[in-house]
């Protein structure tokens, strides 16, 4: 029993947590690619920016003496989402819209988004320093749930932290909301039409300017949600999301750029694969040790990939996907 709990703890939970973050980020990347046709590299730093906005608001609210059963950063999330969405729109108007108006190539926009990445990162570090911060205020504690499986013969508990549970709910709510938005509302349908064929959408009378605006608002909101949830689960650092922007791209590409559902699947796939790749199989195989043929022993570490190469897994998946099916598993768009 312990072995199964260990497997669930190490693979299912940590893979799903990582996968949810990747999925939230990848949806934003994929939406922007679908509508605007460029790889928005600054998405990771938009996540970090959102997390810092939430952090500032939480500190403000905390200073007013307000407390809540969930972390304050989670309470102020709606406001942080609005602020980040507006910031995302302003970034577009300031840095990408002029280039689009000139008819710049997608790769020029990709390089411009690298410039934006550097600016956001530089500003965050200028203002907040480069140290690590705790998303929880001093008076708050990270609540950790331990589910006992003694009645099934297990001795170890199943471990889940409060931010992880919140994260699952937020991801689920986002995905459901996005699904209904894209399939049931006028704006959502307009977005899908624009993503399918920009010229045709324009000719059919869809206000593509409005579609672009809404896309940035949604992408900014999702970035803020993903960044804040990630910062709650780990810690708040200026390079919080810069380090995972490549796995996020891997997730978006694996799912097929432009395909929101593919991005979710890609995110979960990469999250779970990373967890599986560094999983130490010895712990699970230990009960079978006595049945091994004479003279054979279980090695201490039977992980497929050494832990220090964990991030490499996402890139290997990315490269293999690009080679084997360049437009993603679910067939994405092309520029």
């Amino acid at each position, binding site marked *: 029993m312990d072995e199964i709990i260990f497997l669930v703890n190490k693979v299912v939970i940590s893979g799903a947590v990582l996968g949810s973050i990747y999925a939230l980020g990848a949806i934003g990347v994929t939406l922007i690619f679908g509508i605007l046709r*460029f*790889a928005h590299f600054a998405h990771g730093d938009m996540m970090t920016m959102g997390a810092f906005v939430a952090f500032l608001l939480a500190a403000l609210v905390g200073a007013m003496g307000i407390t809540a059963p969930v972390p304050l950063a989670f309470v102020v999330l709606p406001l942080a989402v609005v602020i980040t969405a507006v910031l995302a729109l302003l970034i577009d108007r300031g*840095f990408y819209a*002029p*280039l689009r108006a*000139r008819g*710049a*190539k*997608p*790769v*020029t926009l*990709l*390089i*411009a988004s*690298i*410039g*934006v*990445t*550097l*600016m*956001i*990162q*530089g*500003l965050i*570090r*200028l203002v907040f*320093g*480069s140290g690590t911060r705790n998303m929880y205020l001093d008076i708050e504690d990270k609540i950790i749930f331990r589910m006992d499986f003694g009645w099934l013969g297990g001795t170890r508990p199943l471990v889940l932290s409060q931010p992880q549970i919140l994260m699952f709910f937020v991801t689920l709510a986002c995905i459901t909301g996005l699904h209904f938005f894209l399939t049931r509302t006028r704006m959502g349908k307009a977005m899908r039409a624009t993503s399918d064929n920009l010229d045709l959408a324009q000719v059919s009378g869809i206000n593509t300017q409005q579609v672009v605006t809404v896309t940035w608002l949604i992408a900014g909101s999702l970035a803020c949600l993903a960044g804040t949830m990630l910062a709650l689960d780990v810690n708040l650092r200026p390079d919080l999301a810069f380090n995972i922007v*490549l796995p996020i*791209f*891997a997730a978006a*590409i694996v799912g097929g750029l432009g395909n929101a559902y593919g991005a979710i699947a890609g995110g979960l796939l990469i999250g779970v694969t990373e967890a599986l790749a560094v999983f130490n199989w010895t712990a699970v195989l230990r009960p079978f040790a006595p049945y091994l043929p004479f003279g054979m022993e279980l090695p201490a570490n039977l992980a497929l990939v*050494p832990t*220090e*190469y964990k*991030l*490499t897994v*996402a*890139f*290997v998946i*990315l*490269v293999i996907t*690009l*080679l084997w099916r*360049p437009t993603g598993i679910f067939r994405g768009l*092309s*520029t």
Partner: protein
Amino acid sequence: MIPDRRTLYAFAALIVFVTLVGVWQGPANVSLLIAHTLAYSLIALGLNIQFGYGGLFNFAIMGFLMVGGATNVFFSFPINPDFWASDGPMLLGRALLAFVAGALLVLGARRLDRFGIKGKARGIAIGIAWFVAYLVYRSQIDPAAAYIESTSGWIGGLGLYPVIGWAMAGVVVAFIARIIGKITLGLRSDYLAIATIGISEILRSFVKNMDWLTRGTLAVSPVPWPVPQPQNLQAVGVSIDDSFVYARLGFILLLAVVFVAAFVLVNRAYGGPWGRMMRAIRDNHVAAEAMGKNVRVRQLELFVLGSILMGIGGAMLVTFSQILDPSGYQPINHTFLVWVMVIVGGAGNNWGAVLGAVLIYFIWILSDPLAQFLFLNLSRWTEAIGWGAIPEIDSRSLQMRVFVLGLVISIALRYAPQGLIPEIVHKHHPELGHKKAGA
């Protein structure tokens, strides 16, 4: 490509700028900057071959610099006798055999179609072969690595002259670039950019974690110099201040020889039929293919050539700073910085790439003391009005360069997308209405 008037003015302004910085920062500092700039100019030249000549989006520069640096250390660092006296070489030999066996297995699986096994079955066989080869290799390399790390630390170097190390860095990087190029060059531009960023991270994690080969995060130091070092000069009676300047001057001379040779060759290639063919492929690869050019092979050629310069530049940087510290490599400092150099300078124009390299490197380095100056004054002001001083000024102002770099590239893309010295396209048949390249 002969420099035109704009180029001459730009370089004259650059020389004035560098001289002014020299007056401000002193000869020791500016000689350090110039040495770095020469190495970065070589790297920018490499990117200009790939992006400017061929339009290839290589974002794996950091990976190539790291591999070049590590190769240089392997060839030029003094021999580690502990390693050669231990069982390490034998274990590594076995790992090499396992590697060869694995490679043969994969190659064999790929040839299965000759025995009538085709389609899906062959695909599955190749997958299994890869997996088995991986397990076989891991079963040999893991104990070897653990043994070397516990007995002799790492394998050390070969103790050759550093310039040989630079040349070998070019060779090894060329080999790796060929593999990477073969895999990725078929991809569309933005996919290629993302794939190379990923590959660069893979290369980084290898250099960082193969402690037995590169010493990983423990860092290797001091990497030997090809010219007399300050302490050698001090031993013969040069004063301490002067010794640094003279030692660096010697190094700069050596760098300059390599750089000028590379620049002349690359520049001549641009104007020749080879360069024209590359530009034709860049601007319209379909038409170039129709004219009988082998686009894939030519692009691979460019990719490898550019990467060689990057590898050599990376090796020079390591030799100059005398330390290989894999944790010091960041995409911002080593990939994006070079991209900003080439774009701001003028992609496709070698003079522009070099101008960009010098200018951007100086801006990058000098934004730190400038920000410090600004912050100190601001802090004095906030203290005077009772808000208290700004904490951690040093670490904050170091981050200013990241912001400045981002700002520079945003401004450049918006207002000077062709760069400071744009590519000059000679129109041989204006009546045919050739479009000016770029945009």
